[in-house]
């Protein structure tokens, strides 16, 4: 496809993903409220919050890096999106995916966090620095089992292209990585719990214990950009897991159902289990998921 139609489809895909992310956040909050015997927020409340934040009149800056923090975070989220094939077999919805996109996407997952660390550090608020150091420490522990799972898949399918991994899983549930490589799937789904920022691994963002962590100083448009990124990131990370482990999607309907179920896995666990402290969550990731991840690789080497 020519570059211009492709750019149009990429922007359209980004629009759909952003809106699905916002609606999904509303639905999930509604489900959580109903579990707590409440009526809960309106389903479109995330949209209102976004408009409100973008319409704040006065904004403060603490320097250039403070501005760039949310921009880095957003480019991390959009960066993952740009190289992610969304719909299997569709040239229109495969974005800019290429043969080595799996490596680039795992890099982009950390990129936003680092930008945010620099920005929140310049905010000067001591809690931002505490929050970001705890967040980065935990995210590093999350990345280890996830990287092992991704390596295991790369060995299994002998490729680093997400499109080829999806293609190898076609033909029914018995071909999904979930069935053919259960160890890698378990390791990755356990690390997914941490990546989504729900309980038990959300003490980094816990509002009342450590004032909102990294975004303490971010307000107005800055916060709006962070919220926009959050909506995109949640969907696109679920799409990554869908492509790697659950057979990809052949149309938008399947994509929406699968991403919802994958995201709901982290919400479900969060509703059942209370929070870990950071000094409990990091050893947890370095014990159970790490061992399963190593086993997933050892199985294929032997």
């Amino acid at each position: 496809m020519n570059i211009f139609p492709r750019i149009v489809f990429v922007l359209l895909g980004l629009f759909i993903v952003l809106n699905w992310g916002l609606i999904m956040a509303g639905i999930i909050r509604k489900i959580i409220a109903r579990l707590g015997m409440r009526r809960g927020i309106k389903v479109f409340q995330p949209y209102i919050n976004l408009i409100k934040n973008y319409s704040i009149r006065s904004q403060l800056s603490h320097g250039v890096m403070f501005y760039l923090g949310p921009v880095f975070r957003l480019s991390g989220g959009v960066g993952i999106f740009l190289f992610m094939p969304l719909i299997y077999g569709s040239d229109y919805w495969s974005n800019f995916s290429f043969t080595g996109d799996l490596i680039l996407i795992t890099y982009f997952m950390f990129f936003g966090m680092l930008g945010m660390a620099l920005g929140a550090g310049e905010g000067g608020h001591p809690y931002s620095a505490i929050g970001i150091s705890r967040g980065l420490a935990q995210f590093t522990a999350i990345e280890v089992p996830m990287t092992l799972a991704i390596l295991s898949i790369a060995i299994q399918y002998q490729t680093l292209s997400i499109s080829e991994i999806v293609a190898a899983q076609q033909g029914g549930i018995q071909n999904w990585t979930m069935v053919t490589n259960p160890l890698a799937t378990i390791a990755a789904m356990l690390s997914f719990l941490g990546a989504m920022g729900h309980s038990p691994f959300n003490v980094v963002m816990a509002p009342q214990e450590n004032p909102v962590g990294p975004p303490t100083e971010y307000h107005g448009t800055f916060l709006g950009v962070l919220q926009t990124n959050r909506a995109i990131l949640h969907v696109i990370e679920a799409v990554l897991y869908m492509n790697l482990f659950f057979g990809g999607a052949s149309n938008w309907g399947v994509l929406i159902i699968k991403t919802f179920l994958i995201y709901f896995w982290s919400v479900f666990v969060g509703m059942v289990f209370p929070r870990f402290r950071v000094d409990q969550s990091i050893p947890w990731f370095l014990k159970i998921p790490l061992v399963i991840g190593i086993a997933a690789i050892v199985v294929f080497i032997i």
Partner: protein
Amino acid sequence: MSEKKQTEHDKFLAPENRKHTVIGPDGEEIQVDPLNDYFCTDLPKVEAPYKGVLEKFLNWARAESLWVLSYGTGCGSIELPPLFSPRFDAYRFGVAMRPTPRQSGVLIISGYLAVKTLKRVIRSYEQMQNPKYVIALGSCTINGGMYWDSYNTINRLDHYLPVDVYIAGCMPRPEAILAGFNKLKERIKSGNAEGANEYIEKLEWYKANQKKIIKDWNMPSYNW
């Protein structure tokens, strides 16, 4: 700041906020003037609202998404946590608590306001971003209530901060607070809730009132 004003200011300054010398990691001496070096000394400007349909739409969004600073003064703060319980469920009105003043738009003064607390309230209020709203809860914020002749509480809150909605009672129940939120929503939607700009326009009057009460003013004139 002029020299004379500075010395007047210094009278109340806490020792760590006076000019002093700091020894750096390599043994070099650094002169520090905390109020000028660590804080912004500029005064805020009035942020004019847009006109017409656009402002109406934005006001609708602001009214439907009220983020309240999790900060309680006095006894009324005990009435706030039940708001988010299944029985009252303020989330359905778009109300949510935020732990940092930067992200919140509503400040609830929940009961009597001691002079010591007033200072913290002013700092929190000034750190919030325009547009911002104040809800005054309980009789104590209207005329002092049962503390009207107390030696260390203020009587009328609107001498110190621009108040949008008063909720009378001692103490108002959570239902009354929900009604107050709905009143505030009406006020925001009608475009009259411009307390933040009012505060900036009459800043001198508010500051004079505040400084009359707070004797140990050891912070910048405006806490960004």
